[in-house]
């Protein structure tokens, strides 16, 4: 009994701290905000690479080409590849979020929508300029918060590639058109 009394206080203290921690966790940042923050970084990096590297060097200054076979061609990786390389590296580092670049007119057919939420999201951002799509879906037994953001043609390099690529199913893109969407998934705590 004496031992039990000695132990009780620390246990209660730990429980109180844990409870506070749990409350703090429960009041954590909204999934939507987390997705928006991640997207802000991704979108900014993507735009910077597209405009300040690829567009500038390939179209304005014409000093190097960008190619999907960039190693063979000694060229720059395409902006979409740059984005996917990052997504793949992130996938190797963490399972706390996943992201991908998809399109209703994918050059590689594997990058078309595969889930209902992806399809709805890509159609939503296409038809609602300036708005994002948020939804939930269960994939492989795990519930995800899924956010879809419009991927817009921000430079001439985007549309010239998409309009000229032999596997592109659509060839009439113009500047500021929605080419596809960035899909971010966060596994949800039950």
């Amino acid at each position: 009994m004496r031992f039990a009394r000695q132990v009780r206080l620390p246990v209660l203290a730990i429980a109180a701290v844990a409870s506070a921690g749990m409350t703090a966790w429960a009041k954590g940042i909204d999934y939507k905000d987390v997705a928006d923050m991640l997207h802000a970084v991704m979108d900014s990096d993507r735009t910077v690479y597209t405009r300040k590297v690829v567009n500038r060097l390939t179209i304005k200054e014409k000093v190097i080409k960008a190619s999907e076979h960039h190693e063979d061609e000694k060229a720059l990786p395409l902006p979409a590849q740059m984005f996917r390389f990052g997504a793949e590296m992130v996938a190797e580092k963490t399972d706390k979020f996943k992201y991908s670049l998809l399109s209703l007119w994918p050059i590689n057919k594997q990058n078309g929508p595969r889930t209902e939420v992806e399809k709805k999201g890509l159609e939503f951002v296409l038809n609602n300029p300036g708005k994002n799509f948020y939804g939930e879906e269960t994939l492989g037994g795990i519930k995800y918060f899924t956010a879809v953001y419009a991927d817009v043609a921000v430079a001439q390099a985007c549309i010239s590639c998409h309009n000229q690529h032999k596997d592109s199913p659509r060839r009439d893109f113009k500047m500021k058109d929605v080419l596809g969407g960035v899909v971010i998934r966060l596994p949800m705590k039950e």
Partner: protein
Amino acid sequence: MARTGTLWLIWLLATFAGAAVFVGGMIYGGSSRASLVIGRTTDGHHQIELACSACHTSPFAGREAIQKACVGCHGKDLAEAKDTHPAKKFTDPRNADRLQKLAATQCVTCHTEHRPRITLAMGLTLPGDYCSLCHQDIGKERASHKDLAFSTCTQAGCHNYHDNRALYEDFLEKHVADLDLLAKPVVKLRAAPPERASDAKPIDSLSSADAPPAHSGDPRLQNDWLASAHARGGVNCSGCHAPADRTANPSGTGWIAKPGHAVCATCHQQEVATFTQGRHGMRLAAGLFSSTGSLFGAKDAQPLTPMRPALARLPMKADAHATDLTCTTCHTAHRFETRRAEVEACLGCHDDGHSRAYLGSPHHKLAVAEQAGHGPKGSGVTCAACHMPRDTHEDPESGEDRLLVVHNQNANLRPTEKMIRSVCLDCHGLGFVIDALADKPLIARNFTGLPSVRVESIDWVKRRLAEREAQSNAPAGKK
């Protein structure tokens, strides 16, 4: 009743004894381990099958540990091959339904060991039409692929699951106009000798040899060394035989009579590293033991012995069966001339049809002509030219590209299309090469004759290219 009890006791003791022998054999190894291998291993792993812990890194480790072991040996090769289906592509939740059909994040999903009855070429243990699980719509996307059987994707010379560096559409397109034989058919030439690692001056006299009297060897060995690249590079006897301080002790202590591959690796790091990745040297790779140390250190773990032709599954010459394969097996100690290692050393052991057909083949005739001074440098094609080609590789330490002979002769061997970029395209056009590598009888004849197989992929690419050109040349409004 007492008799029944005794019988039960005997049965229990016998069961425990049998289990102890089995478990002891598996864990501690030794001669019993070979008979306890459960199911014949694949051709790629059989040489190291007694080193169970190479794959089963701990007795009760699950799939993750196996996966880690797979990646530990094959990961770098897959990365260099620009793996088109890396595990990281499948971890996106959007592929969860696909992963349920095919767990593509795990090597063992397609390459299960110890399953000889279902093991196909490349160690594949899935039905050959597995591509259909994800690419079932390819017939709708590509008219050329309509009605093709999915079992042909990787069997017809068009695609591989991992390595498509020489097979992707734009690469084919770039090579549609290639001639069968290029205008200047030469393999990659030897790089300039590396700068000497030390300040040692070339040795041009036997009087400079620093071997202690007891180990000076016979004059033939001394002269072989004096004529070698080692002597020209200032590597004295002690450089290899007394590697600890590279100075010969007059008393002969610390002298190694037959330096092994580890000594070679002190200067030829990448050559030895790649040697221990291939079938010739994989048994010498670090950390492979045929038995585990036990009895509190009283019994040491036993490393695998060097590969011997007798252990091979390919036909080998009987008189070579007992030869241990180390660096000097092919390069010979003291002379270390590379020419012997290009053909003579290979044919000293290999006795399969492809090897036997080399002598007298067009490639061999070119090699003879070059050696006789009748052909340009690099025009000869030896065994090593194809199976241990010189190629540019990134130095892991400096990050700089370096022309290197990869001594893992498996690195570009399977699937055969891996050889296209590293070797074949030095001399031949892509379409010709793809056809030749798809023609198994031609390979068996060591490429004596012309391909009798036509892989249509390059024709389809030509057709698609022509269609695009016709479309772009069509008058506006008809596009």
